C-alpha cells in the first residue's frame, strides 16, 4: 500500500511553510517535499543554518530574518519534511512521485499544494553562455549559503531582486565594478499612476526607492543602458553597452551577473496538465486558479510565486488561503476566515503593477538582435539556427522540436521556452498567447534508469 497523506506540499519556501504550519492546526497529515537540503526556498535560503551566526552576516536584513520565525514555527509543526526530494511527476489521481538520495518513492495525497516558486527569466543576451556569466539569483544563493562572492563583478539587468542582490553584495563588503541598469532613468507618468495602489504596501515601495536611490548615487552606476553584450572567447572578458547618452562603453570584467526579473516555475504545473494562461503584464504563463488557488484539477492547489510573482508576504497568505479552502472542503474550517485572508493577500499584490511596469524587460533581452547568440543552450542552437527552422513552416514550439531539437535537452525549455515562443509569434505576427508553450511532460526532473527501475509502491514514507 502507498502511504496516504491528507496533504502533500511541494516546496518549502514561504508559501509551502506557511501552508504546512496552517495545515497542522487542522490536524492534516502533511508531507512536505523540497529539493534543497533545508527549508527556506529562494528568499529564506539557508535560514536555519544562518540564524546561528547572525552577527557574521550583516548583509542580510530584517526581511530575510523574518523568515526565521516561519521556519521555526514550521519545524515545530506536525508536518513531516523530506528534504532533498525531487518531485518528478504528479498524476491526476494525486499520486506524487519523487526521488530522494537515489531512491524513488510514491505517496498518495488527498490534496496537493504546489509551491515551487519562481525562476529567473531566460536572458539570452549575447555572450550569456560564457563561463563567468551567472544569474543574479545564483550569485545571491552563493552569498547566502557560503558567504561567497567576488570583487570586481558587473551586475547587468534590472528588477527588484537585482537591487536587493546588489545591496547585499555591497553590504557583504564586495567591491562592485559596475551596475548596468536597463530600467528607465526617470519614472514615466504611468509609473507614478501605478504607485497609487502601491501605497498599500508603503514599506516595500519606500525600501525599494531607497535602494534604488542609494545605488544610483554610486559612481559605477549606469542607467537606462541599451544593447548589452558580453564579449570573450573562452570565458567572459568584458561587457559593452550603449549608455543613456548614446555612447558605446566597454567594461572589462570576468564576472558578470545578469537578471531580468522572475517568472513562475511552471514545469510541474504544466507537466501535470493543469490549465494555464498567458499574462501579458508579467510576460509569462501562469496556472489558472480560482481565488483560493485551486487549479483546473480538483484538489490540486497552487500557492506562492508559482501562481505569478508577488513576493514572499503574498506567498505566506496564499499558502494559508489554500489550506483554509482544503480544510473547508473537508468541512474543517470557516469560510469567513478564508475571505479575510484573501483580502490580506490582495493587499500584498498592490505594488506589483508598478514593479511590473517599471521593470519590464527590454525587447533585446527577451530576444537578442544578434543572430549568433545562443538561444537553446542544451542543444547549442543559435538564434539563426532557430529562425531558419521557423522559416521552414513551423507553427508552434512543439513542431519546432522536430525541425531542430530546440527545447529537447535536460532543461526542458526552462532556458529557451519563452524566447522561442516569442520568435515564433514575431515570425507569424501572432500573439504569444496563441503560439503557446512547449508541451511539457514528466519527469520534470531527471531521474536515473535505476531509480525508476527500483521504484516501489509500498515502501513506508
Amino acid at each position, binding site marked *: 500500500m502507498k502511504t496516504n497523506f491528507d496533504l502533500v506540499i511541494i516546496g518549502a519556501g514561504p508559501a509551502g511553510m506557511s501552508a504546512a504550519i496552517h495545515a497542522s492546526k487542522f490536524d492534516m497529515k502533511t508531507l512536505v517535499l523540497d529539493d534543497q537540503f533545508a527549508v527556506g526556498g529562494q528568499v529564506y535560503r539557508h535560514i536555519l543554518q544562518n540564524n546561528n551566526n547572525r552577527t557574521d552576516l550583516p548583509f542580510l536584513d530584517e526581511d530575510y530574518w523574518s523568515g526565521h520565525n516561519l521556519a521555526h514555527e514550521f519545524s515545530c509543526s506536525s508536518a513531516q519534511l523530506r528534504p532533498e526530494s525531487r518531485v*518528478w*511527476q504528479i*498524476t491526476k489521481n494525486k499520486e506524487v*512521485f519523487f526521488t530522494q538520495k537515489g531512491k524513488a518513492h*510514491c505517496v498518495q495525497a488527498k490534496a496537493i499544494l504546489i509551491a515551487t516558486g519562481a525562476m529567473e527569466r531566460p536572458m539570452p543576451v549575447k555572450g550569456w553562455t560564457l563561463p563567468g556569466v551567472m544569474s543574479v539569483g545564483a550569485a545571491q544563493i552563493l552569498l547566502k549559503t557560503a558567504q561567497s562572492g567576488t570583487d570586481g563583478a558587473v551586475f547587468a539587468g534590472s528588477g527588484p531582486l537585482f537591487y536587493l542582490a546588489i545591496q547585499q553584495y555591497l553590504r557583504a563588503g564586495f567591491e562592485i565594478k559596475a551596475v548596468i541598469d536597463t530600467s528607465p532613468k526617470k519614472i514615466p507618468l504611468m509609473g507614478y499612476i501605478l504607485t497609487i495602489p502601491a501605497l498599500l504596501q508603503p514599506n516595500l515601495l519606500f525600501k525599494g526607492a531607497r535602494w534604488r536611490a542609494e545605488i544610483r548615487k554610486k559612481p559605477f552606476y549606469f542607467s537606462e543602458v541599451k544593447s548589452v553584450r558580453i564579449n570573450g572567447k573562452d570565458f567572459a572578458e568584458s561587457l559593452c553597452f550603449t549608455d543613456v547618452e548614446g555612447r558605446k562603453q566597454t567594461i572589462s570584467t570576468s564576472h558578470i551577473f545578469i537578471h531580468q526579473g522572475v517568472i513562475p516555475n511552471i514545469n510541474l504545473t504544466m507537466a501535470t*496538465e493543469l490549465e494555464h494562461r498567458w499574462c501579458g503584464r508579467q510576460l509569462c504563463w501562469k496556472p489558472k486558479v480560482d481565488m483560493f488557488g485551486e487549479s483546473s484539477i480538483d484538489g490540486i492547489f497552487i500557492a506562492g510565486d508559482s501562481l505569478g510573482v508577488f513576493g514572499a508576504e503574498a506567498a505566506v497568505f496564499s499558502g494559508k488561503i489554500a489550506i483554509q479552502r482544503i480544510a473547508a472542503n473537508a468541512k474543517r474550517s470557516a469560510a469567513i476566515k478564508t475571505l479575510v485572508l484573501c483580502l490580506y493577500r490582495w493587499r500584498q499584490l498592490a505594488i506589483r503593477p508598478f514593479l511590473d511596469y517599471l521593470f519590464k524587460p527590454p525587447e533585446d533581452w527577451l530576444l537578442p538582435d544578434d543572430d549568433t547568440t545562443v538561444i537553446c543552450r542544451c542543444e547549442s542552437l543559435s538564434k539563426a539556427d532557430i529562425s531558419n527552422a521557423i522559416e521552414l513552416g513551423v*507553427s508552434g514550439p512543439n*513542431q519546432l522540436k*522536430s525541425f531542430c531539437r530546440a527545447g*529537447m*535537452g*535536460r532543461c*526542458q525549455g526552462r532556458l529557451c521556452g519563452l524566447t522561442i515562443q516569442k520568435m515564433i509569434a514575431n515570425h507569424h505576427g501572432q500573439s504569444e498567447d496563441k503560439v503557446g508553450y512547449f508541451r511539457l*511532460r*514528466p*519527469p520534470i526532473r*531527471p*531521474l*536515473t*534508469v*535505476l531509480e*525508476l*527501475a*527500483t*521504484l516501489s509502491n509500498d515502501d513506508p514514507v
Partner: protein
Amino acid sequence: MMIPSNRNKVIVIGGGIHGCATAYFLAKRGQTVTVVEKDHIARHASGVNAGGVRTLGRDLAEIPLSLASMDLWKKLHSEIGVYAQAFHPSFYLKVAIDEEGYALGSARAEALKHAGYNHEFWLDASDVQDRLPKLTTPTYGGFLVEGDGWARPWLIVRGFAQGARQYGAEIIEKCNVFGLELRQNCWYLKTDKGVFEADYVVNCAGAWAADLAFQSGEPKAPLSAYAPMLAVTESKPPILPAVIGVLGHTLSLKQLDTGQFVIGGGVRASANLSENSGEVVLPELRESMQLAARLFSDISNAQIIRCWSGIEGYMPDNLPIIGHGKQPGLIHGFGFSAHGFQLGPAVGEVLADLVMGQQPRVPLDAFRPDRF
C-alpha cells in the same frame, strides 16, 4: 483566401507515414494527389515513435509486407534522397532471458521454418554475448536479423512528404476532415478549408480512422486508441550496437548516434482523440527500466531526461486494416497497432496499387477490413 481548386483524383486523409508514403507513390505514378492533415505532417504516431525498423518478430501474416518494406528501406535513398540518412541499419536482437522466453523462441523458430522464412536467425547464448559485449545478464540465446535498425521517424515522414510534393502532390496542413460522403460516384470531404471532391479517398487517419470511416457509412471497425510511451536518457558512451528486444517481455531498447538510450516497449497510457493528447505515466515504464538496467548495467546510471507518448490505433488481432472499404473509391490503411512505422514504405506502395486498380504486390488477405 481562395479555396483550392476542388477537383482532385485522390485525397489521402492523414499526414503520417502511411498517408505520406501513399501520396508519394501515387504522385510518382502520375496521379493527382492531395494530402489533408488536421495538424501537421508527422504530428502523431509517425513522428514520435521509437523509430524501430524491424522485420524481426512480426506476425506470420505480416512478414511478406514487412520484408517488402525492408527492400524499400534498403534503397530509400533513391526515393527520398538525403532524408534516407535518417535510417541507421545495424542489427536487431531479441533475446530470451528466462525459460518462458526460450520456449517462445523455440515455438517461433518452428513456425518460421514451417512457413519457409529464414530472415530471423537463432543465435546461441555465447554468440549473443559476442555480439553484445556489454551485456550483463546471461541469456538463453536470441533471434537476430541483420540489417534491421532504427530511424529518426520525423525525418523519414518529411522525406516522403517532400518527395510527394516534388512529384506534384499537394499537402494541406491544419485541415481537419469532419465529413465524408459519397454521392453519385464522387466523394465529398467537408474540411476546415472548404469542401473537397475526389474520385478516391485513402483513409490513413491513424487512431482517428475508424470513427471517420464509420461516419461515412462504413461498418464500425474495432479500433481502440492508446498512447504507448517512450523515455530517452542523457548521452552516454556507445555500448549498444543493436536494437534490443526481449522475448516475452515489454522492452525495446536502442542507443542513438547521440549516445542517448531510447527505452520503451509497448507500455501504453490512455489517449484522448478529441483533445489530441496522450498521457504520460512514467512509473508504468518501470518494468522496461528494470529490464534495460539488468541487460546492460551501464544504463543504470543514465538519467532519464524526457518521456513522451504518441497516439496509436490498435486492432484486436494487432494486424492492420489494409484494403477496399464497403463503398466504392474508399480505401483504408490504419490500425497498425504500434508496429506500423517500418511497414510505411510498403503500405504506401500497396495502397497506391489499390487506388490504381492494380494487383497489390503482397497478399493482403489477413488485413481485410471486413474480417471482423
